[in-house]
């Protein structure tokens, strides 16, 4: 008996690696396989390129520019490229694009390109934070409602119905009238509101499908508690779908912010929507002005559209990763 124990322990010990390194290797392998599938989707790759370009522009290019080129300028010590407080005395503002200001200046004399790049990381953070909150709430509630069913399920589904019908933008307008809404608050509000809405319904459906699969029964037969099953089986199988919906939620969040900024309801210093608002209140988007002063709204408008669209495209590309049936043979 002792001999037997020795014989099995030794070769086994030699082959077993530490569990953490194995998990890391498995995750890396899974990532590579999913990447292969994702990279075959043209629309997904286009979305990814656009997002990467914006991310690089906002998180890398802008800080470098701000620290180097724009802080010091040899032309005039008083010209500042600060997107919020800068003012270019040299020109008639709003000034058309020139070598000093690649995208011109806005009615308040601020450099448009600086504004664009300054807002980029903020738009990213807003979108991702809002989407994360939405998805976390949606996943938790959806899986719990699906698993327990009954009155709990009915309650959350009716709540989701109400949230779906909720007039989103007017609600945000009212809120902004009652309190100061900055980007973080906005992200929280959007996240909480959407979290109880449509995404919960979709993830709950997915949870129901998972719940009826035999491996759940197998865990129950082994004595698993409800919490164990939800955390170890249902949520991991729902997560790909959650991740997918997160992409679509980023789109929604960025767009909502743009709308609210356009109405001037947000208490923020600078964002793409705010750029359009500034141009609008100064009267440069009315009538023939709209084409004469294109740099006041086109770059910001295009950025909103492109970034929103890009995240949506990534979502479309992820569809094939998440749903194996859609893959090409």
């Amino acid at each position, binding site marked *: 008996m002792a001999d037997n124990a020795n014989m*099995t*322990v030794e070769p*086994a010990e030699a*082959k*077993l690696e530490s*569990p953490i390194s*194995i998990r890391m*290797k*498995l995750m890396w392998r899974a990532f590579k396989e999913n990447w292969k599938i994702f990279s075959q989707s043209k629309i997904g790759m286009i979305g990814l390129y656009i997002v990467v370009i914006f991310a690089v522009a906002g998180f890398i290019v802008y800080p470098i520019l701000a620290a180097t080129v724009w802080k010091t300028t040899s032309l005039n010590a008083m010209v500042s490229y600060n997107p919020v407080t800068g003012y270019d005395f040299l020109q008639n503002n709003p000034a058309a694009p020139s070598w000093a200001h690649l995208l011109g200046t806005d009615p308040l004399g601020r450099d448009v390109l600086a504004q664009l790049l300054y807002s980029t990381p903020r738009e990213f953070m807003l979108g991702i934070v809002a989407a994360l909150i939405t998805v976390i709430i949606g996943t938790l509630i959806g899986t719990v409602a699906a698993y327990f069913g*009954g*009155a709990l399920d*009915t309650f959350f589904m009716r709540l989701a119905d109400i949230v779906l019908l909720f007039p989103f933008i007017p609600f945000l307008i009212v809120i902004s009238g009652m309190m100061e809404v900055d980007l973080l608050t906005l992200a929280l509000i959007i996240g909480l509101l959407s979290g109880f809405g449509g995404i919960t319904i979709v993830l709950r459906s997915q949870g129901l499908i998972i719940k009826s*699969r*035999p*491996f759940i*029964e*197998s*865990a*129950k*037969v*082994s*004595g*698993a508690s409800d919490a*164990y099953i939800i955390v170890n*089986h249902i949520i*991991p*199988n729902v997560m790909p779908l959650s991740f997918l919906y997160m992409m679509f939620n980023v789109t929604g969040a960025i767009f909502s912010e743009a709308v609210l900024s356009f109405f001037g309801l947000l208490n923020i210093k600078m964002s793409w929507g705010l750029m359009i608002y500034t141009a609008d209140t100064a009267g440069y988007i009315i009538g023939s002005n709209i084409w004469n002063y294109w740099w006041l709204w086109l770059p910001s408008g295009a950025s909103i559209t492109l970034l929103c669209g890009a995240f949506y495209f990534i979502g479309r590309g992820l569809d094939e990763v998440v749903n194996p049936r859609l893959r090409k043979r």
Partner: protein
Amino acid sequence: MSDNEVVMKVENLNKFFPMKKSVFSRAKHFLHAVDDINFEIKKGKVLSLVGESGCGKTTTGKTLLKLYEPTSGKITFLGKDVTYIQSSEDRKWFHSRTQMIFQDPFESLNPRKTIFDIVAEPMNIQNFGTLRKRELMVMEILKRVGISPPDAFLWRYPHELSGGQRQRVAIARALVMKPEFVVADEPTSMLDVSIRTQVMKLMMELIKEMNMSFLYITHDLAVARYMADEIIVMYLGRIVEHADSEELINNPFHPYTKALISAVPVPDPEFKRKSVEIKGGIGKPIDPLPRCRFYDRCPFAMEICAQKEPELIEVGKNHKVACFLYNQERR
């Protein structure tokens, strides 16, 4: 534990499902999925529940393992009453000694887990042993079920394995903690023919080796004959016949058993099979009337069959039938 000890004993087990229209309404109708089932399984023995779809065999198996709560009746496991277990200690004791093998090798394994996670799951849930011990036990059981070399498979995912290999993994998962009682729900019906025999033989070997008590659920009488010591034939939730396997196959009493046996196609082209004519199809046992459930289709139906439910009576050594044809009561 002596070899003649009863491992699982079932008395008057009922499982009725209420048919409700919505979450808040009261149920007016009940589906009698399992109706007054009695049997016992001794250590090391295999009992097979045989019947067509809707007869209640799967529901019985799942109720025994606590996937459903019994409506009434008594379940005794290793001498303890486990009909309704509440305390977590009792639950842990029960679940560490009972297990199930499912029908679908594709769906009974979580596609996002590795083979190691899947087979070790019972131990993870029960918090059994150290990580190192669990790894060793997983490797040992994988080797025993024919997944060899085990360390090559530990970190693979189910979709990388064939159907037969997946079912072996499912068996490994069920047996890793050496349970006393295992329910197998049609474990080979979704496998290829040449793999089926391999898996059946594997289960037979393991049952003998580990001296387990097995409840084998199947619709195929030929498989039940091969795998089981005793066979129970079920129809619409009730037991219609119960005997040792060879006795039941060679000497059937109940008209339904006879029909089942004669309906099995014979792999011999020269054999002229004469099948028993029974009419109609299987209904659902919803609010069944107090009469024999086979009455509508039985070619030998008599008046009394429509008035009372037949009880199980002894017609031979360890051979019981529920049929008025053999009951002294018939008038």
